[in-house]
Protein backbone atom coordinates (compact mmCIF):
# COMPACT_ATOMS: atom_id res chain seq x y z
CA UNK A 1 0.00 0.00 0.00
CA UNK A 2 1.09 3.53 -0.80
CA UNK A 3 0.56 6.47 1.54
CA UNK A 4 0.68 10.05 0.31
CA UNK A 5 1.45 12.64 2.93
CA UNK A 6 1.09 16.36 2.24
CA UNK A 7 3.85 18.72 3.32
CA UNK A 8 1.69 20.28 6.01
CA UNK A 9 1.30 16.93 7.80
CA UNK A 10 4.80 15.55 7.49
CA UNK A 11 6.73 16.52 4.40
CA UNK A 12 5.76 15.94 0.82
CA UNK A 13 6.25 12.21 0.62
CA UNK A 14 4.92 8.99 -0.83
CA UNK A 15 5.61 6.09 1.51
CA UNK A 16 5.33 2.43 0.66
CA UNK A 17 4.08 0.15 3.44
CA UNK A 18 4.46 -3.59 3.09
CA UNK A 19 1.40 -5.21 4.64
CA UNK A 20 -1.46 -7.38 3.43
CA UNK A 21 -4.40 -6.22 5.49
CA UNK A 22 -4.28 -3.77 8.38
CA UNK A 23 -6.57 -1.19 9.95
CA UNK A 24 -6.04 2.54 9.51
CA UNK A 25 -5.01 2.64 13.16
CA UNK A 26 -2.29 0.05 12.58
CA UNK A 27 -1.24 1.84 9.41
CA UNK A 28 -0.72 5.08 11.36
CA UNK A 29 1.45 3.20 13.87
CA UNK A 30 3.61 1.56 11.19
CA UNK A 31 3.83 4.83 9.28
CA UNK A 32 4.96 6.70 12.39
CA UNK A 33 7.72 4.14 13.03
CA UNK A 34 8.80 4.30 9.43
CA UNK A 35 9.14 8.09 9.23
CA UNK A 36 10.38 8.45 12.81
CA UNK A 37 7.65 10.83 13.83
CA UNK A 38 4.54 10.05 15.83
CA UNK A 39 1.60 10.87 13.58
CA UNK A 40 -0.84 9.37 16.08
CA UNK A 41 -1.14 12.67 17.97
CA UNK A 42 -2.18 14.30 14.72
CA UNK A 43 -4.44 11.62 13.28
CA UNK A 44 -5.95 10.04 16.38
CA UNK A 45 -7.81 11.94 19.03
CA UNK A 46 -9.58 10.36 22.01
CA UNK A 47 -9.27 6.98 20.35
CA UNK A 48 -11.05 8.22 17.25
CA UNK A 49 -10.07 9.77 13.95
CA UNK A 50 -9.05 13.39 14.53
CA UNK A 51 -11.27 16.07 12.98
CA UNK A 52 -8.17 17.77 11.55
CA UNK A 53 -7.23 15.05 9.13
CA UNK A 54 -9.16 13.06 6.58
CA UNK A 55 -7.91 9.67 5.49
CA UNK A 56 -8.82 8.48 1.99
CA UNK A 57 -8.44 4.90 0.80
CA UNK A 58 -8.71 4.75 -2.99
CA UNK A 59 -10.67 8.00 -3.00
CA UNK A 60 -13.08 7.09 -0.21
CA UNK A 61 -13.05 8.94 3.10
CA UNK A 62 -12.81 6.39 5.93
CA UNK A 63 -15.36 8.49 7.80
CA UNK A 64 -17.91 6.92 5.44
CA UNK A 65 -16.65 3.50 6.56
CA UNK A 66 -15.36 2.40 9.95
CA UNK A 67 -12.98 5.27 10.73
CA UNK A 68 -9.75 4.03 12.31
CA UNK A 69 -11.03 0.45 12.09
CA UNK A 70 -11.34 0.61 8.31
CA UNK A 71 -9.23 -2.04 6.58
CA UNK A 72 -6.42 -1.08 4.21
CA UNK A 73 -5.36 -3.80 1.76
CA UNK A 74 -2.26 -4.50 -0.25
CA UNK A 75 -2.20 -2.26 -3.33
CA UNK A 76 -4.50 0.37 -1.81
CA UNK A 77 -3.66 4.05 -2.11
CA UNK A 78 -4.01 6.10 1.04
CA UNK A 79 -4.03 9.92 1.07
CA UNK A 80 -4.16 12.28 4.01
CA UNK A 81 -5.88 15.65 3.64
CA UNK A 82 -6.10 18.27 6.39
CA UNK A 83 -9.54 19.81 7.02
CA UNK A 84 -9.94 23.44 5.92
CA UNK A 85 -12.98 25.65 5.49
CA UNK A 86 -11.67 29.21 5.21
CA UNK A 87 -12.45 31.53 2.35
Amino acid at each position, binding site marked *: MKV*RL*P*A*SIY*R*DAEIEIDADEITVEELVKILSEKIGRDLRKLIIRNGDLS*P*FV*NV*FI*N*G*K*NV*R*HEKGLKTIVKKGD*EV*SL*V*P*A*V*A*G*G
Partner: protein
Amino acid sequence: MVKLDRSQIRRYARQLLIPEIGGRGQEKLLEASVLVVGAGGLGSPVIQYLAAAGVGMIGIADGDEVDETNLQRQTIHAGNLGMNKAESAAQFVEKLNPDVKVEAYPFSVTVENARDLVRRYDIVVDCTDTFPARFLLNDACLLESTPLVHSAVLRFEGQIMTIIPHETACYRCFLPEAPPPGSVPTCREAGVIGVTTGFFGVLQANEVIKLIISKGELFTNKLLYVDLLHNDFNLIEISKHPSCPACGERRIKELRSEYYVETCRIETD
Protein backbone atom coordinates in the same frame (compact mmCIF):
# COMPACT_ATOMS: atom_id res chain seq x y z
CA MET B 1 -27.73 34.28 -30.23
CA VAL B 2 -25.71 37.22 -28.98
CA LYS B 3 -23.90 39.13 -31.68
CA LEU B 4 -20.65 40.70 -30.56
CA ASP B 5 -20.46 44.41 -31.26
CA ARG B 6 -17.33 46.33 -32.17
CA SER B 7 -16.43 47.26 -28.63
CA GLN B 8 -16.98 43.68 -27.43
CA ILE B 9 -14.68 42.38 -30.15
CA ARG B 10 -12.03 44.75 -28.85
CA ARG B 11 -12.65 43.99 -25.18
CA TYR B 12 -12.51 40.21 -25.62
CA ALA B 13 -9.96 40.13 -28.50
CA ARG B 14 -7.30 38.20 -26.58
CA GLN B 15 -9.66 35.40 -25.61
CA LEU B 16 -11.57 35.37 -28.92
CA LEU B 17 -8.25 34.32 -30.44
CA ILE B 18 -8.16 31.15 -28.32
CA PRO B 19 -9.56 28.27 -30.42
CA GLU B 20 -11.49 26.85 -27.42
CA ILE B 21 -13.26 30.19 -26.89
CA GLY B 22 -13.73 32.15 -30.12
CA GLY B 23 -17.04 33.83 -30.89
CA ARG B 24 -19.20 30.86 -29.82
CA GLY B 25 -17.43 30.53 -26.48
CA GLN B 26 -17.72 34.26 -25.86
CA GLU B 27 -21.42 34.15 -26.61
CA LYS B 28 -21.79 31.30 -24.12
CA LEU B 29 -19.94 33.35 -21.51
CA LEU B 30 -22.17 36.38 -22.16
CA GLU B 31 -25.28 34.22 -21.85
CA ALA B 32 -24.16 32.44 -18.66
CA SER B 33 -25.23 33.21 -15.11
CA VAL B 34 -23.07 32.45 -12.09
CA LEU B 35 -23.82 32.82 -8.38
CA VAL B 36 -20.79 33.65 -6.24
CA VAL B 37 -21.49 32.98 -2.56
CA GLY B 38 -19.08 34.99 -0.45
CA ALA B 39 -17.32 38.12 -1.70
CA GLY B 40 -14.24 37.71 0.50
CA GLY B 41 -10.81 36.23 -0.16
CA LEU B 42 -11.91 33.58 -2.66
CA GLY B 43 -14.82 35.61 -3.98
CA SER B 44 -12.65 38.58 -4.93
CA PRO B 45 -10.65 36.85 -7.69
CA VAL B 46 -13.65 34.77 -8.76
CA ILE B 47 -15.79 37.88 -9.26
CA GLN B 48 -12.93 39.83 -10.81
CA TYR B 49 -12.00 37.23 -13.45
CA LEU B 50 -15.55 36.16 -14.29
CA ALA B 51 -16.57 39.77 -14.78
CA ALA B 52 -13.48 40.50 -16.86
CA ALA B 53 -14.11 37.44 -19.06
CA GLY B 54 -17.64 38.69 -19.76
CA VAL B 55 -19.86 36.29 -17.84
CA GLY B 56 -23.20 37.92 -18.60
CA MET B 57 -24.91 37.63 -15.22
CA ILE B 58 -23.16 37.45 -11.86
CA GLY B 59 -25.05 37.13 -8.58
CA ILE B 60 -23.10 37.96 -5.43
CA ALA B 61 -24.31 36.95 -1.98
CA ASP B 62 -22.62 38.15 1.20
CA GLY B 63 -24.08 39.46 4.45
CA ASP B 64 -20.85 40.94 5.83
CA GLU B 65 -19.40 44.42 5.68
CA VAL B 66 -15.94 45.36 4.45
CA ASP B 67 -13.56 45.95 7.34
CA GLU B 68 -9.89 46.82 7.54
CA THR B 69 -8.75 43.25 8.31
CA ASN B 70 -10.22 42.09 4.97
CA LEU B 71 -8.10 44.27 2.71
CA GLN B 72 -4.92 42.18 2.87
CA ARG B 73 -6.65 39.52 0.73
CA GLN B 74 -10.00 40.85 -0.47
CA THR B 75 -8.81 42.84 -3.42
CA ILE B 76 -12.03 44.22 -4.90
CA HIS B 77 -13.27 46.37 -2.03
CA ALA B 78 -10.92 49.37 -2.34
CA GLY B 79 -12.34 52.46 -0.66
CA ASN B 80 -15.48 50.70 0.56
CA LEU B 81 -14.87 50.21 4.29
CA GLY B 82 -18.15 49.67 6.06
CA MET B 83 -20.11 48.85 2.93
CA ASN B 84 -21.87 45.52 2.46
CA LYS B 85 -19.49 43.20 0.57
CA ALA B 86 -22.00 42.08 -2.06
CA GLU B 87 -22.80 45.70 -2.86
CA SER B 88 -19.14 46.71 -2.87
CA ALA B 89 -18.33 43.79 -5.20
CA ALA B 90 -21.22 44.78 -7.48
CA GLN B 91 -19.74 48.29 -7.76
CA PHE B 92 -16.41 46.78 -8.75
CA VAL B 93 -18.04 44.69 -11.49
CA GLU B 94 -20.01 47.63 -12.87
CA LYS B 95 -16.82 49.66 -13.21
CA LEU B 96 -14.87 46.81 -14.75
CA ASN B 97 -17.28 45.56 -17.40
CA PRO B 98 -20.59 47.10 -18.48
CA ASP B 99 -21.48 43.86 -20.33
CA VAL B 100 -22.08 42.12 -17.00
CA LYS B 101 -25.43 42.32 -15.25
CA VAL B 102 -24.77 42.06 -11.55
CA GLU B 103 -27.20 41.27 -8.76
CA ALA B 104 -26.11 41.91 -5.16
CA TYR B 105 -27.73 39.88 -2.36
CA PRO B 106 -26.63 41.69 0.81
CA PHE B 107 -27.42 38.75 3.09
CA SER B 108 -26.14 35.28 3.96
CA VAL B 109 -27.34 32.15 2.23
CA THR B 110 -29.63 30.25 4.60
CA VAL B 111 -31.70 27.07 4.63
CA GLU B 112 -34.70 29.24 3.75
CA ASN B 113 -33.28 31.09 0.74
CA ALA B 114 -30.57 28.72 -0.59
CA ARG B 115 -32.59 26.72 -3.13
CA ASP B 116 -34.36 29.78 -4.47
CA LEU B 117 -31.06 31.60 -5.03
CA VAL B 118 -29.28 28.59 -6.54
CA ARG B 119 -32.19 27.92 -8.93
CA ARG B 120 -31.72 31.29 -10.66
CA TYR B 121 -28.18 30.49 -11.83
CA ASP B 122 -26.37 28.06 -14.15
CA ILE B 123 -23.37 27.55 -11.85
CA VAL B 124 -22.61 28.24 -8.18
CA VAL B 125 -19.18 29.10 -6.74
CA ASP B 126 -18.57 28.34 -3.08
CA CYS B 127 -16.43 31.14 -1.65
CA THR B 128 -17.84 30.93 1.88
CA ASP B 129 -15.77 30.48 5.01
CA THR B 130 -17.55 27.99 7.28
CA PHE B 131 -18.33 24.29 7.13
CA PRO B 132 -22.12 24.75 7.55
CA ALA B 133 -22.27 27.22 4.64
CA ARG B 134 -20.30 24.78 2.47
CA PHE B 135 -22.55 21.82 3.31
CA LEU B 136 -25.63 23.96 2.73
CA LEU B 137 -24.46 25.00 -0.76
CA ASN B 138 -23.51 21.43 -1.63
CA ASP B 139 -26.93 20.12 -0.64
CA ALA B 140 -28.84 22.98 -2.29
CA CYS B 141 -26.90 22.45 -5.55
CA LEU B 142 -27.63 18.70 -5.45
CA LEU B 143 -31.34 19.37 -4.97
CA GLU B 144 -31.35 21.91 -7.80
CA SER B 145 -28.92 19.93 -10.01
CA THR B 146 -26.64 22.95 -10.34
CA PRO B 147 -22.88 22.51 -10.81
CA LEU B 148 -20.83 23.76 -7.87
CA VAL B 149 -17.18 24.81 -7.71
CA HIS B 150 -15.88 24.39 -4.18
CA SER B 151 -12.71 25.77 -2.65
CA ALA B 152 -11.46 26.28 0.91
CA VAL B 153 -8.21 27.73 2.25
CA LEU B 154 -6.12 28.24 5.36
CA ARG B 155 -2.73 29.94 5.73
CA PHE B 156 -0.76 28.83 2.65
CA GLU B 157 -2.95 25.80 1.98
CA GLY B 158 -6.12 25.13 0.13
CA GLN B 159 -8.25 22.74 -1.85
CA ILE B 160 -10.51 22.86 -4.88
CA MET B 161 -13.11 20.46 -6.24
CA THR B 162 -15.86 20.72 -8.86
CA ILE B 163 -19.18 18.96 -8.41
CA ILE B 164 -21.60 17.94 -11.15
CA PRO B 165 -24.63 16.89 -9.09
CA HIS B 166 -25.45 13.17 -9.17
CA GLU B 167 -22.71 12.55 -11.74
CA THR B 168 -19.52 13.20 -9.81
CA ALA B 169 -18.49 13.05 -6.15
CA CYS B 170 -20.08 15.77 -4.02
CA TYR B 171 -18.65 17.68 -1.07
CA ARG B 172 -20.21 15.23 1.37
CA CYS B 173 -18.65 12.32 -0.56
CA PHE B 174 -15.34 14.02 0.20
CA LEU B 175 -16.33 15.02 3.73
CA PRO B 176 -19.53 13.43 5.10
CA GLU B 177 -19.75 15.78 8.06
CA ALA B 178 -17.90 18.74 9.53
CA PRO B 179 -15.35 18.60 12.31
CA PRO B 180 -16.97 19.66 15.61
CA PRO B 181 -17.10 23.46 15.87
CA GLY B 182 -13.88 24.85 17.33
CA SER B 183 -11.83 21.74 16.54
CA VAL B 184 -10.37 23.04 13.29
CA PRO B 185 -8.80 26.49 13.18
CA THR B 186 -10.46 29.08 10.95
CA CYS B 187 -8.77 31.82 8.91
CA ARG B 188 -9.76 34.21 11.67
CA GLU B 189 -7.79 32.15 14.20
CA ALA B 190 -5.02 30.57 12.15
CA GLY B 191 -4.63 33.18 9.43
CA VAL B 192 -4.54 33.21 5.66
CA ILE B 193 -2.60 35.19 3.10
CA GLY B 194 -3.98 36.87 -0.02
CA VAL B 195 -1.91 34.80 -2.41
CA THR B 196 -3.63 31.62 -1.19
CA THR B 197 -7.15 32.94 -1.70
CA GLY B 198 -5.97 34.51 -4.96
CA PHE B 199 -4.53 31.24 -6.24
CA PHE B 200 -7.61 29.18 -5.43
CA GLY B 201 -10.09 31.84 -6.49
CA VAL B 202 -8.45 32.04 -9.90
CA LEU B 203 -8.64 28.24 -10.20
CA GLN B 204 -12.34 28.43 -9.32
CA ALA B 205 -12.95 31.08 -11.99
CA ASN B 206 -11.11 28.86 -14.47
CA GLU B 207 -13.36 25.89 -13.60
CA VAL B 208 -16.44 28.09 -14.15
CA ILE B 209 -15.20 29.27 -17.54
CA LYS B 210 -14.51 25.68 -18.66
CA LEU B 211 -17.94 24.59 -17.44
CA ILE B 212 -19.55 27.39 -19.48
CA ILE B 213 -17.65 26.75 -22.72
CA SER B 214 -17.71 22.92 -22.23
CA LYS B 215 -14.00 22.59 -22.95
CA GLY B 216 -11.03 21.05 -21.18
CA GLU B 217 -11.03 19.07 -17.96
CA LEU B 218 -12.42 19.78 -14.52
CA PHE B 219 -11.56 18.91 -10.93
CA THR B 220 -14.41 16.42 -10.86
CA ASN B 221 -14.01 13.20 -8.85
CA LYS B 222 -10.78 14.67 -7.67
CA LEU B 223 -9.59 17.26 -5.21
CA LEU B 224 -6.49 19.35 -5.64
CA TYR B 225 -4.82 20.01 -2.29
CA VAL B 226 -1.96 22.50 -2.46
CA ASP B 227 0.48 23.69 0.15
CA LEU B 228 1.87 26.87 -1.39
CA LEU B 229 4.52 27.25 1.30
CA HIS B 230 6.22 24.04 0.21
CA ASN B 231 4.91 24.03 -3.37
CA ASP B 232 3.36 20.66 -2.64
CA PHE B 233 0.59 19.78 -5.11
CA ASN B 234 -1.59 16.73 -4.34
CA LEU B 235 -4.28 15.59 -6.73
CA ILE B 236 -6.46 13.17 -4.79
CA GLU B 237 -9.04 10.89 -6.35
CA ILE B 238 -12.45 11.26 -4.71
CA SER B 239 -15.16 8.71 -5.51
CA LYS B 240 -18.88 9.24 -5.47
CA HIS B 241 -19.85 7.32 -2.36
CA PRO B 242 -22.94 5.06 -2.37
CA SER B 243 -23.53 5.80 1.31
CA CYS B 244 -23.02 9.56 0.91
CA PRO B 245 -25.73 11.18 3.05
CA ALA B 246 -26.39 13.81 0.36
CA CYS B 247 -26.01 12.17 -3.05
CA GLY B 248 -25.89 8.47 -2.22
CA GLU B 249 -28.60 5.84 -2.30
CA ARG B 250 -30.45 7.60 0.50
CA ARG B 251 -29.97 11.07 -0.89
CA ILE B 252 -31.46 14.10 0.84
CA LYS B 253 -34.85 15.30 -0.34
CA GLU B 254 -34.96 18.70 1.28
CA LEU B 255 -32.88 21.18 3.25
CA ARG B 256 -33.47 21.00 6.97
CA SER B 257 -31.95 23.45 9.42
CA GLU B 258 -30.72 20.62 11.67
CA TYR B 259 -28.37 19.49 8.86
CA TYR B 260 -26.34 22.68 9.15
CA VAL B 261 -25.57 22.98 12.84
CA GLU B 262 -22.63 21.57 14.78
CA THR B 263 -21.11 18.80 12.63
CA CYS B 264 -23.74 19.23 9.87
CA ARG B 265 -24.62 15.54 10.06
CA ILE B 266 -27.55 14.28 8.04
CA GLU B 267 -29.44 11.71 10.09
CA THR B 268 -31.15 9.37 7.69
CA ASP B 269 -34.54 8.28 8.90
